[in-house]
């Protein structure tokens, strides 16, 4: 079992952070990365984990580049970064359930409770993570180490915020991991009382050992077990819904926004029923577009802040499926409410009954497309501060086909013309976007995570 890295170089703003780092780690090896603040320890660890790409050089697992065998490597890797990768609105126990699902693992509730006890968090089982202290959150982030045995551990300053009991516990875990022939890569300021074999000082740019050319050994690809996969994805979906629902402000606001925008138009244009009946399709659809795109701005925000996106990028589960589950949960909580209330507003705008039914169907078909496209846009903007209205500017031109066919369907319903063609086209748009958008979103997310 070998993890080798050769000639790794990374620059930031055209200045080399570190260059020509190389090494070879075998089972039972520990690599301690030291250096002053800003010397690039976290960057090097992220490169070794596969979250970032080096400017030059390669990282190889069993002789294969880690990008070529991404699924196998990530199955064997645990990465703990600066951030904890938890969801604040979920309880401690739910967070551990989510971590288990993300690792595609199967654990009975008793096993999860036992892990809680080991982490001394059993009394905080049903406390929401937002109420935990920094040290308790750090211990929670260690849960994944206990959930699954993997070959490689990459830990970035894991001892921060931990009290001395916690630190001793973690070092004990590390020792057991090494004894079980695992590979440990750790960055910390403190001296470790472990059997250090190799050290890298990033400031001194020492080259610890020559790396030997490794012949690629055949890797067994992780067997996709459909039952476990679907259960894991379903669990993540369920937890995402719970996360969103517990933050009432985030999902009720699109609903209110929709209502207010629709009500602005009669105020602006006058209450003439004939006029309102004519322009109602446009008003309702434009309001739906605006409400959706504004809610899409927040879809990845909390995950990015908590480091949860790193976990998504490193999960053995296919990233496209994780993204689909996340966007579906976003749609269900942010768009479905205003879809359900739209007939009421339609009545305010003098829609006929057939138009009301068409409205609900068209919105049900069209808003998922809006969410999928918005998801790509939101992923493109991960890591950027204060981008304000950039997401609407980028994505709203792509909403135009949905807008055109959605409003035309409503107009046709007003004249009792056949509607099947419109629904067919909107269905086709939905299929096309659900095929393309998750893939593009995963590229954009990996790009965003590597910043």
């Amino acid at each position, binding site marked *: 079992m070998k993890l080798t890295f050769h000639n790794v170089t990374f620059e930031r703003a055209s200045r080399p952070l570190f260059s020509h780092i190389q090494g070879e780690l075998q089972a039972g090896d520990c690599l301690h990365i030291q250096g002053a603040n800003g010397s690039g320890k976290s960057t090097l660890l992220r490169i070794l984990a596969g979250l970032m790409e080096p400017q030059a050089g390669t990282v190889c697992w069993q002789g294969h580049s880690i990008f070529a065998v991404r699924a196998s490597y990530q199955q064997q890797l645990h990465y703990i970064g600066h951030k904890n990768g938890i969801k604040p609105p979920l309880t401690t126990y739910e967070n551990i359930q989510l971590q288990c699902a993300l690792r595609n693992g199967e654990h009975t509730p008793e096993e999860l409770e036992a892990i809680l006890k080991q982490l001394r968090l059993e009394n905080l089982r049903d406390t929401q993570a937002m109420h935990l202290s920094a040290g308790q959150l750090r211990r929670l982030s260690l849960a994944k180490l206990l959930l699954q045995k993997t070959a490689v551990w990459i830990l970035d300053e894991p001892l921060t915020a931990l009290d001395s009991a916690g630190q001793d516990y973690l070092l004990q875990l590390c020792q057991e991991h090494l004894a079980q022939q695992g590979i440990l890569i750790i960055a910390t300021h403190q001296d470790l009382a472990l059997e250090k074999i190799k050290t890298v000082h990033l400031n001194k740019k020492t080259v610890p050992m020559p790396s030997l050319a490794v012949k690629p050994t055949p890797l067994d690809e992780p067997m996709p077990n459909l039952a476990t996969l679907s259960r894991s994805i379903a669990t993540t979906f369920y937890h995402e819904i719970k996360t969103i629902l517990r933050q009432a402000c985030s999902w009720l606001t699109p609903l209110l926004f929709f209502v207010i925008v629709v009500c602005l138009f009669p105020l602006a244009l006058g209450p003439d029923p004939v006029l309102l009946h004519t322009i109602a399709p446009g008003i309702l659809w434009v309001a739906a577009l605006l409400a959706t795109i504004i809610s899409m701005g927040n879809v990845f925000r909390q995950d990015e802040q908590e480091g949860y996106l790193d976990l998504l990028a490193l999960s053995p589960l296919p990233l496209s499926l994780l993204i689909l589950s996340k966007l579906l949960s976003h749609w269900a909580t942010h768009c479905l409410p205003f879809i359900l209330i739209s007939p009421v507003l339609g009545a305010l705008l003098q829609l006929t009954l057939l138009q009301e039914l068409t409205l609900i169907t068209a919105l049900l078909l069209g808003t998922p497309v809006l969410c999928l496209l918005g998801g790509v846009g939101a992923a493109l903007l991960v890591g950027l501060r204060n981008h304000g209205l950039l997401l609407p500017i980028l994505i*709203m031109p*792509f909403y135009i*086909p949905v807008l055109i066919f959605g409003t035309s369907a409503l107009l046709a319903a007003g004249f009792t013309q056949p509607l099947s063609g419109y629904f067919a086209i909107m269905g086709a748009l939905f299929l096309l976007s659900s095929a393309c958008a998750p893939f*593009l979103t995963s*590229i954009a997310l990996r*790009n965003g995570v590597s910043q």
Partner: protein
Amino acid sequence: MLHWLNQRFLSPKLFYETSTAMLPWLVALFTLTFAYGLIDGLFFAPADYQQGDGFRIIYVHVPSAFTAMAIYAVMACCAVMTLVWRIKIAAVCMACSAPLGAWFTLLALVTGSIWGKPMWGTFWVWDARLTSVLILLFLFLGFLALQSVIIEQRNRDRATSVLAIIGIINLPIIHYSVIWWNTLHQGPTISKFATPSIAPSMLYPLLAMIAAFLFFYVFILLLRMRNQLLLRDSQTTWVKEALQ
């Protein structure tokens, strides 16, 4: 042929040298085609039966629109090359083409609406073609906005590539839905902006102008790409030599 292209264009240094050789030719070709198209189009092509001399605006409007769409197609190809094969030149080409695309789209819109005034009596008509060009302008501006916000160069290349790819997938869909929307709301009457069947004496200057605009695009593109490559590789030796 592919190998020759690979050799010539994929390394920044070779690209710089090759483009240095190409630039004079581009200027010559542009001057020839532009002069011919301009003179023939403005003075020698016979006046149109319906529109009189006003149709001569076609010689700047159609090339602008054509070049704008060609630029987007080039950007989309470069986006695929950037994401799939990590070709740095493709990323630079895409980044430099974007402002040019925006300019040509804007020019097409403005010339189109100036043409509209004498033809339809109004500066703007929501017909399918002009609306599609307007949306194309939004796509270019969105691309430029995203480009300006991301600081790290590699992330910027990849993110803008993804945006370009979404755009190229959506562009036919948007175009056809706008055409359809237009027929829906205007009814079955033929759009007043019907393209007449065009006589050869009118066609040749048009083709020449299209070629001229494309030569101009490539010329400015190469100039800007050279500048960007010098900046990106500013620490390497070939840049230092090239500037001495």
